[in-house]
Each structure stands twice: as structure tokens, then as C-alpha cells.
């Protein structure tokens, strides 16, 4: 088999690498098994105290809800006049919960050197939220907000883990 033939075959084979969603929603079955599947012990030398973990978990949960809202919204890459403002309002309300959770963690745990970065991200998020209030149909703003919180999570993670 020549190299050209191999290349042609590999090119075609690479086209088979695609996502394939299960026909059924597997999450209910997975969730049922998680309750009976204990997680292995962490290898991290430093155990995270409960008061540090709780807001962190809350933040991630809120982020994922925002992400899911983003994913299920039709036409999420552009303004969509069919989008319900109520969905956006709920997302915005959740982001405030997220902000509050992070603020509590920042108040007690944040290193002074990163407080400025936190402040800049807070201001960016606030500006985007204001823009959402003005135009609740502008779905792209939700994505911008999600990116801002993703950055915030990453930075917060660095602070809390060091």
C-alpha cells in the first residue's frame, strides 16, 4: 500500500471522529449509581475546609446552570427575538447568587495581590449584567458573562488551592 493510499484512507478515517449522542438520556441511570459508588480518597495533601468548599461548589453549580441555559437556548450565537426575557432574568439572578458566593470566599480567603483582579472581573460582570438589563434578548451577552465567570472561577481556584 503506497503512502498516498494510506494518507487518503487516514483522511477519510479522521472524518469518523465525531461526537455521537446516546439515543437515551443516560444521566438518570448514572445519578442512581453515583449514590452507591463512593469516590476514591483524594490524594491532595491539604484538605479543603468546608467553609472554603461550599461557596466554591455553589459557584460551579451556578456556572453550569448558566451554561446549560446557554446551550438550550435556540440560536444562542446571535440575538433571537423568540428568546424569553424570563430565562435571561433567571440567569442574571443566578449570577448574583454566584457573585455573592464568591464575594464571601474572597472576603475571608483572597490574597491581597489578587483582589485587584477580582475587582476588575467584578466590574466587567456588572457592566455585562447592566447591558443584559437593557437588552434581555441579547443572548450573546450571556456568553460574555459566562466567560467572565469562568475566568473568575479559575482565578479563585488558584487562590483557594494555594
Amino acid at each position, binding site marked *: 500500500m503506497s503512502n498516498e493510499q494510506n494518507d487518503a*484512507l*487516514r483522511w477519510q478515517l479522521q472524518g469518523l471522529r465525531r461526537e455521537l449522542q446516546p439515543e437515551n438520556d*443516560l444521566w438518570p441511570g448514572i445519578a442512581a*449509581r453515583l449514590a452507591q459508588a463512593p469516590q476514591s480518597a483524594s490524594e491532595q495533601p491539604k484538605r479543603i475546609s468546608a467553609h472554603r468548599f461550599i461557596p466554591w461548589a455553589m459557584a*460551579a*453549580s451556578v456556572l*453550569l446552570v448558566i451554561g446549560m441555559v446557554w446551550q438550550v437556548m435556540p440560536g444562542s450565537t446571535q440575538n433571537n427575538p423568540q428568546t424569553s426575557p424570563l430565562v435571561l432574568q433567571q440567569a442574571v439572578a443566578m449570577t448574583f447568587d454566584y457573585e455573592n458566593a464568591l464575594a464571601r470566599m474572597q472576603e475571608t480567603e483572597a490574597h491581597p495581590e489578587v483582589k485587584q483582579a477580582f475587582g476588575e472581573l467584578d466590574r466587567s460582570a456588572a457592566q455585562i449584567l447592566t447591558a443584559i438589563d437593557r437588552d434581555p434578548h441579547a443572548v450573546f451577552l450571556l456568553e*460574555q458573562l459566562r466567560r467572565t465567570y*469562568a*475566568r473568575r472561577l479559575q482565578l479563585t481556584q488558584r487562590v483557594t488551592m494555594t
Partner: protein
Amino acid sequence: MFMLTAVMSELTHDTTIPEVAAETDAALAKSAAGGDAIAFEAIYRRHAGRVHGVIVRLVGAQGVRAEDLTQEAFVRAWQALPKFRFESAVSTWLHRLAVTTALMELRSRRSGPRFDEDENAVDGLGVADSAGNGTALSMDLERAVATLPPRARAVLVLHDIEGWKHEEIANELNMAVGSSKAQLHRARQLLRTRLGGEA
């Protein structure tokens, strides 16, 4: 509005989508590692398609069985997350876990071609297979891959579709690097035969 525009511009240009996805994955994985099932559901929603896809490519689209393996892979991920050190992307880690889960299934099968016994069978299928005698001209590529013997299919899928190196494949399949290369050569030859030399 000017400030908002500036913020938008900065966020758009400074952060690519894959980076944001990786950051979000890592944040969710850290929460899930602490027992947050909601965060883990988000990981499932984000990666079910990729995980299920590679499992189907390795074991074949056997409906419920492939879905069982996808479910199994995510349960294993849940159990192993606390030991995940974030030295690779969460998506990469999940992909490898899916491959391992699928290969364990192939090794344990009691019916059909045995994963550990088809080394010689590949040679016997090199020119003309018993089902199609090399005349299945119209067989599409995906179906042709699915009809390969398990070990040859695993090597071909991992190397040519998933992009693994022979060293990685040999380690995962517990074979010599040379055997991996030989299996790939034969798998390609089988494919070309079954596709009627059109690939």
C-alpha cells in the same frame, strides 16, 4: 456603552472558546471531585457525545450495550475524580477513561471474535473475508471499520481516528509497539479490501 464595548472586545480577543471550555471543565471537575453531583451532571452533558462516540467506534454500535459502557465510563470517572491531578485536560482524561472502559469490555466478551485471540485471525482475513469475499464494494467506511476483528479495529480506531501514537496504543493494549504497527497495517489492508480498493 463605550466601557461595555471595551470589555466585550477584551473578552473576545483574549479568550478563545477552547480555553473557556477547558477552564469550565476544570472548575466543574473540582466541584465534582468534592461530591457535587450537579457539577458532575454538567460534565456528563458536556462530554456524553465524545465519550459515547469513541466507545461506539471501539465496540460497535450495539445500541444498549454501548450506552451501558458510556454509563459505566461516567460512573468510573465519578469515582476516580478525587485522584485526578489536572495534569491533562478533563476532556482528554475522560476520553482515555472511555477507551479503557471499552477495551475492558472487548477483552471480557464471551461471544463473537475474542479480543485476545484474533492476532492470527487477522492474517486469515487479509485478502478476502468469509462474509464478503472482498467484494463489498459499496460498504461504507464506518461499517467496514465495525466489521474488523476487535484487536485490529482497536488499533486502527486509536491510531487513525483518535490520533494516538503506537507507543500509547501498545501500552493500553498490552502489546509490543511492533505488534501495534503490524495490526494497523493489516487493518488498513482489510479495510481497503472491504471497500473495494476505493479508499
